[in-house]
């Protein structure tokens, strides 16, 4: 089993000018690893991460978008896999951190930890899907995952993390949204 922050440290080495949509526990870990203007953190309602990512990808087909979603969040918007599969943005890479829990809501289990997100994504029309539970394998393949023509989906099987500090005031700072917009439109 992998740790989410370890996966993100590896991922961060490959991220350049992509928009990275990250929320809740994934956002806390990602921002610690890679604070940058192109982090998109304000999604407004749990589950909408993947939908924001689709909109970003459609709006700038010349740039790439990476979504870092939690399993509980994706379950709240599972239909977005079907929508993304049909819209088929080539520039979208969608990761889900599968730790079997609603970590930001008290660590309660998701309804069925055995849910196979990668299989659902594949059946929904994603161009490529992956399932990682070994950190070394993830490290070897992450560059390839990011370069694939999308939409690409990858499940990261991770442990529930250590207790996190959720600084929502900082994460949802309107100045961060302004900075994102400026950086996203800059090129």
């Amino acid at each position, binding site marked *: 089993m992998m740790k989410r922050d370890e996966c993100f440290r590896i991922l961060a080495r490959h991220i350049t000018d992509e928009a990275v949509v990250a929320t809740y526990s994934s956002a806390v870990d990602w921002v610690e690893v890679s604070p940058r203007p192109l982090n*998109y953190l*304000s*999604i*407004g*309602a749990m*589950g*909408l*991460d*993947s*939908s*924001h*990512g*689709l*909109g*970003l*990808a*459609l*709006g*700038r087909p010349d740039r790439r978008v990476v979504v870092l979603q939690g399993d509980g969040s994706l379950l709240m*918007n599972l*239909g*977005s896999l*079907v*929508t993304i599969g*049909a*819209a088929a943005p080539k520039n979208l890479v969608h990761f889900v951190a599968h730790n079997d829990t609603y970590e930001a809501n008290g660590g309660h289990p998701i309804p069925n930890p055995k849910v196979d997100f990668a299989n659902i994504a594949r059946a929904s029309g994603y161009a490529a899907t992956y399932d990682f539970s070994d950190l070394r394998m993830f490290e070897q393949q992450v560059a390839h995952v990011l370069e694939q023509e999308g939409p690409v989906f990858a499940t990261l099987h991770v442990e529930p993390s250590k207790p996190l500090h959720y600084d929502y005031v900082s994460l949802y700072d*309107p100045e961060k*949204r302004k900075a*994102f*917009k400026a950086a*996203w*439109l800059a090129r």
Partner: protein
Amino acid sequence: MEATASRANKGARKLDGGGIIAAIKASGIDYVLSVPDITTSAGLLAPIANDKTLRLIRVCKEDECIGIATGLAYGGKRALTLIQHTGFLDSINAIRGVAVEYKQPICMMIGLLQHDPEKAPKESPRYGVRIVEPILDDMGIAHHLISLDADVAQIKPAIDKAYAESHPVAFLIGRSPSVS
């Protein structure tokens, strides 16, 4: 919020779908995001699906539209969310968080299911229709009732204003638009 002056108009009481689509295009809308709504199905969604200049994204659930439209807006693209009032009610938390609290230009065209177009929505015998305008008022979202051809002129300035000032707006479709 805004009274529709044309209520008192004794002229033709009809709503042409082609006129609404022309107004959507004139407003610079690039994407239409939709879950089918029976009020607007034949007069708006079907012709939009066949339109060469508007890109239709069919979504599974209405709140997806709120996220997609926001992402598009960050990239400088305009979107219209075309849904039924039941889907609006289902999406309240997304609209609250994204459109209202984050002040995003979410433009919604909402079909009032089984609404009698000769009545004001607040006077509808249908509870679901009756509560739409009060909810929009409570959320501070500008809204416009589109029931007659004369109402269609409100669409472009309201969408332009929403994008210029970065706030949401709703158009309530009170009558099934005719097929042009």
